[in-house]
């Protein structure tokens, strides 16, 4: 059973709809006992970094999540679910991230419109299972004010004022800054790669 982490502020409904459309069973998870029985985890993060980390902590989900990720449980982070992998975010300096990616999440600067809302292109940096079958320069849908820096684990980057991590893959740990449930065929393919793999 795929667990969709529901911390109270995320985008669970839309992701659930997409997962079911692709023929997989999933359920919202808001308690530790539901999380630990999940075979794969999706964290559809939306809103404020600090609010999400705090809500995860309050629901007792943070420790089991860390443990499952260390054990290699397949994970797909969406939007804030990617940002949570970094060490910290400028959006909430007091809330540590999971520290699985080096560096800090920062706010867009030097661009007139923030948040970055709309379709932008994926520049593939290296082959990955996450982006299997997705053509280079495909468009995906973004809605965010903060971004994660490009690291070795970035399998694709996007440019909005600067280049930033669009998709990351560390073994079974995958994450995307864009919304695959809102990115039409390309997004569905990303979800399919995660669900079928």
């Amino acid at each position: 059973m795929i667990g969709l982490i529901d911390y109270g502020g995320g985008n669970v409904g839309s992701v659930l709809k997409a997962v079911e459309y692709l023929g997989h069973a999933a359920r919202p998870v808001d308690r530790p006992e539901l999380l630990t029985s999940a075979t794969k985890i999706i964290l559809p993060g939306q809103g404020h970094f600090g609010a999400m980390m705090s809500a995860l902590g309050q629901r007792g989900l943070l420790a089991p999540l860390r443990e499952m990720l260390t054990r290699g449980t397949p994970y797909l982070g969406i939007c804030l679910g990617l940002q949570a992998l970094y060490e910290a975010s400028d959006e909430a300096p007091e809330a540590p991230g999971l520290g699985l990616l080096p560096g800090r999440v920062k706010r867009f600067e030097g661009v007139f419109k923030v948040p970055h809302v709309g379709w932008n292109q994926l520049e593939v940096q290296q082959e990955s299972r996450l982006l299997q079958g997705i053509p280079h320069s495909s468009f995906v849908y973004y809605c965010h004010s903060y971004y994660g820096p490009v690291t070795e684990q970035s399998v694709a980057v996007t440019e909005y004022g600067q280049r930033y991590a669009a998709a990351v893959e560390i073994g079974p740990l995958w994450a995307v800054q864009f919304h695959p449930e809102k990115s039409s065929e390309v997004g569905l393919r990303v979800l399919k790669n995660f669900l079928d793999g």
Partner: protein
Amino acid sequence: MFAKRIIPCLDCKDGRVVKGVQFVDLRDAGDPGELAAMYDREGADELVMLDISASREGRATLMETVNQVARRLFIPLAVGGGVRTLDDARRLLSAGADKVAVNTAAVERPDVISEIAAHFGRQAVVVAIDAKRPRDLAVKEIHGVTDSVSFTSEGVWTHFKPAPTAPPWKVLTYGGTRETDFRALEWAARAESLGAGEILLTSMDADGTQRGFDCELTAAIARSVHIPVIASGGAGSPEHFAEVFLCGAADAALAASIFHFGQHTLGNLKRFLATRGVPVRLVGNRSDAVESRGSRVES
């Protein structure tokens, strides 16, 4: 490259899509789910559903229509028309909308913007503004505003030159039937500060004329707020869309009546815009479409 968005608009009345964007091969406008999937295939970047029901019963059945549209739609969906309270927003978002558009209710009680933003995030709130120029203000040449806008080849606005004067367009409410004393420019800035994620700007002068968007209005609003501005009202040709992006500084444009008679398709519009240097997302043929493997819930 960051693309400008083309957003078809569906009018819904009493739970039915009554005026959608009619493409040449559209067979049946009756099934909202089919319609939605088709717009997605044609390359729509987003969909707006506007409820024009007069009755409360009509509003209630809107939820079911939203649900049917959202079920097979994997691009953003914004729903508006008669949204007055946080509860209205909650119901629409639960039914499958990603964003709700508020218009008259926000003018009458601006706090509704921050309430919805606080609960659902500002990306869920679109403030729709209907604006009209004062009777005695002449229409300027649209090319007069070209030098105020600037975007990089990646399609990203980096800066705007400050506007020389504050344009006096007024805000209308109740479907454009009532004129308020509020200036559109100031209202847009206030909406942004209250938590609006985007502005949907309709020129009531241009709306229905098919003679082009009001690029002066659009540019004035777009360069005064740091949130995206969706232009609406007046499109009659692909050239009008090029103008509103290149001269009007719009981030997105709403498309409705331009497609009603089948002369223009979404695909052709986007290809035309690409030749004019407007960054757009082109979708190729859909032989690689990801098929549903889930159970279909029969309506």
